[in-house]
């Protein structure tokens, strides 16, 4: 804000002002320049009553609130790491009841199929004999834990907590970009973004009936209790964190506190005679369920990486013996391997006999020779991703990359075709975001959170991540992405199937 603007007096922050142009992308708010989508109309009216200064003031108030409440993530891990807040954009992202119902059904279908797949590949391996998916791809995946074949998990559920990334293309259709089946994070922002927006812009909530997201911690605790080892009457649940230097530490504390369970570090636990205990001020206390926010590799130095200080010696043995449950189960990484992702539509067909409700993004798997040839010929159009990386690391965005960068990926693809996949560069949908003193379109995605215990439950909301740099397609917080509150609108008279009465 410059003083010149301040002298001009309040200017309307009306997003419908002619300056805002969807530029040919699918815009969440605008069907065309100046044409607000119906469900955004009350929001647009409210925005039009605010001056640019008022928008900026609320934006600052929101950021201050995140700062003083310590809602931060660590950028460089370790004692010298910097704590940053995730930039927050004031304007919420709205999802209609019918849009949400579609997403909900699609995710439930997908998660059920993926859990049947995980059960299968850790038991009879029927699918590997079907010819639908190359056995090498599964058995050779870094996330596949052959030593857990034959180990049963409670309720046969492997992925109790999932955060799938959805995107919308230029036609407005939702696609699943990736499944996060190991230790997905971000749900604390779903809840905190809502709390902060209520604080800094309460007026806007009077315009809508928004489905609450506060229930997530209770739902999560229900799931964790449901998967306790058989015989644990009043199961003790804990959350295992790598500690304060982990980038998602705030979230671990947030969830432990909201659920009223202990947040433990590896050193707080020990295993004695196959049973897991925590060290308390009055002696040992048995632990039944561990919501672990630690990767498989670091869980137990006796079973996996011996150099891990985060884990608990003997934990894996206790888990195998069924004395303690882990959420998510060990070995789920195989199912969110990006090369196996390409086969999820086949997996849904195979186990459920259904058409996928939410499609995959078309994916080239370079272990297929035709795909490799195509990828090498079209590097300047494609996005190439390492199969085991996440957080926006280890990827090439062809159209934005330098010649040298593309050449580097060409060499990598030839040397290790199993290590990469490629996808067309998607024209991700955009949403108006406040940039300095006006609104501009920024690309967004959507990460809903899915819980699976006795039933699948999708929290009505999600994290809308925003690529804050103009034109950027990378929404990860580690790469300068921000967040928006995400509203699932309650179904009105026109969509009675969404009312809770019907369920």
């Amino acid at each position: 804000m410059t003083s010149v603007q301040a002298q001009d007096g309040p200017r309307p922050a009306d997003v419908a002002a002619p300056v805002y142009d969807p530029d040919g992308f699918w815009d969440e708010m605008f069907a065309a320049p100046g044409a607000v989508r119906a469900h955004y109309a009350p929001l647009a009216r409210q925005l039009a009553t605010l001056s640019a200064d008022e928008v900026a003031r609320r934006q600052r108030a929101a950021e201050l609130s995140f700062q003083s409440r310590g809602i931060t993530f660590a950028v460089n891990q370790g004692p010298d790491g910097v704590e940053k807040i995730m930039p927050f954009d004031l304007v919420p992202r709205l999802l209609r009841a019918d849009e949400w119902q579609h997403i909900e059904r699609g995710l439930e279908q997908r998660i059920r199929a993926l859990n049947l797949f995980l059960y299968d590949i850790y038991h009879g391996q029927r699918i590997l004999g079907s010819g639908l998916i190359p056995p090498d791809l599964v058995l050779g995946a870094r996330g596949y834990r052959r030593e857990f074949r034959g180990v049963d998990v409670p309720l046969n559920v492997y992925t109790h907590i999932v955060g799938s990334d959805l995107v919308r293309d230029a036609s407005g259709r939702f696609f699943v970009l990736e499944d996060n089946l190991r230790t997905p994070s971000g749900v604390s922002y779903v809840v905190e973004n809502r709390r902060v927006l209520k604080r800094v812009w309460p007026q806007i909530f009077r315009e809508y009936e928004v489905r609450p997201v506060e229930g997530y911690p209770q739902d999560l605790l229900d799931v964790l209790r449901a998967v306790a080892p058989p015989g644990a009457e009043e199961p003790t649940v804990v959350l295992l964190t790598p500690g304060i230097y982990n980038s998602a530490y705030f979230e671990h504390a947030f969830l432990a506190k909201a659920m009223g369970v202990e947040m433990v570090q590896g050193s707080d636990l020990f295993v004695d005679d196959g049973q897991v205990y925590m060290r308390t001020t009055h002696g040992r206390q048995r632990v039944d369920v561990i919501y672990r926010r630690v990767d498989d590799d670091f869980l137990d130095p006796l079973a996996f990486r011996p150099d891990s200080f985060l884990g608990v010696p003997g934990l894996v043995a206790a888990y195998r013996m069924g004395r303690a449950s882990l959420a998510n189960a060990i070995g789920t990484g195989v199912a969110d391997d990006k090369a196996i992702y390409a086969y999820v539509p086949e997996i849904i067909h195979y186990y459920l006999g259904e058409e996928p409700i939410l499609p995959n993004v078309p994916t080239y798997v370079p272990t297929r020779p035709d795909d490799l040839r195509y990828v090498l010929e079209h590097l300047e159009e494609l996005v190439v991703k390492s199969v085991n990386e996440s957080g926006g690391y280890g990827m090439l965005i062809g159209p934005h990359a330098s010649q040298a960068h593309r050449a580097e990926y060409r060499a990598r693809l030839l040397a290790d075709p199993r290590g990469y996949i490629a996808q067309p560069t998607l024209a991700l949908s955009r949403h108006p975001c406040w940039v300095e003193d006006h609104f501009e379109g920024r690309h967004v995605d959507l990460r809903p959170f899915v819980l699976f215990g006795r039933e699948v439950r999708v929290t009505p909301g999600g994290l809308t991540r925003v690529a804050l740099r103009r034109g950027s397609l990378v929404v990860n917080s580690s790469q300068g992405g921000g967040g928006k509150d995400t509203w699932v609108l309650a179904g009105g008279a026109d969509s009675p199937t969404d009312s809770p009465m019907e369920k």
Partner: protein
Amino acid sequence: MLARVAEELFWMSRYVERAVSVARLIDVTLHLELDDGDPEDAASLWAPLLRPALGGGLSRFGGWGGQGGAASAPLAPITAAALEDGGVLTLRSAPAAGDVRYDLAFNEENPSSMASLVRRARAAARGVRECISSEMWEQLNTLYLSLVNPRVAAEAEEDPHGFHKRVREGAQFFHGLADCTLAHDEAWHFITLGKYLERAGSVARVLNLETHLLMPGGGPRGADEIVRWLAVLRSCGSAEAYARYYSLRVEPARVVEFLLLNPVFPQSVRFSLNAAWEALVGIAERGTFIRGGARGADPAVRALGLLRARLEHAAVDEVLEEGLDHYLSDVQGRIEVVAERVTHSYLRHEAQTGRVVGIARAAMIMAGQQQQQQQQQ
């Protein structure tokens, strides 16, 4: 509750309380300096507050060290050896008063500076966020952010009294929030225990450093002596309450009596130890010590009970006769023992380790299962 969490809470609370003491001490010394008016004397007022790294001085706030771990790194202890080596008198050159103030307030390399203490308290709080109230965390975080603000050092020189008041009140507010936003259960007991043990130790340390004033020829006489003892009271936040009790007749023996033995004033050593004892019994009662029969079975409770009794039945004349420095050193040493025993009984149980035998057996069972599977396949 988790032993690690209890330990973090205990130290978090001590660091915050210690920051209050440092803020008071700087503020009071600043007032003394202004009263004195002679710039030559300034160095001799500030020098005793120095830590060794600044040229041979002696840290007043060394105190008893921590028990290791990220949040409880030991502080530089005051040792008899340091005193015998001449302590403050071996300063090679007098440092500027402003440097000392900076060192005590903002120097991150000085583990006893306010900034270091608040940073460590915050680090401890961060590790146990799920066990303290959001209000407490926000308060401590705000206090921390205000101390690492790049402009804060200049502001503190500009308005030192206002600055130290803000830090002191910020830290006191934190403890107030602990009292009214937490259930008074085990976590709160550990916070309370830390606060009062620290306070008892701090007051004993401040008094101990002034014992030389009681020696013949050991300090200023007349009006200056009164100013000095008033400063002692102020650095323990006790001047107003003292005046109410003794109509501001500042006599060394009365000051010592008030700070050491007053049963109802919350800044006195006796009061603090009583409050610490209540908290410790609250902790012990949840465990087996009471159920097992005698309260005295817990070594930490016993050590603190004995120390309480020592102050409970003391008379100031006898204390002075015994030698105040001797008496205070004994009290400080006993507080240290209590802290060690609390650590041993509750925070770092030795018995709580997985037996290797158990792990080995689990591994054998695993191997057996694997064999069975292979046979099935």
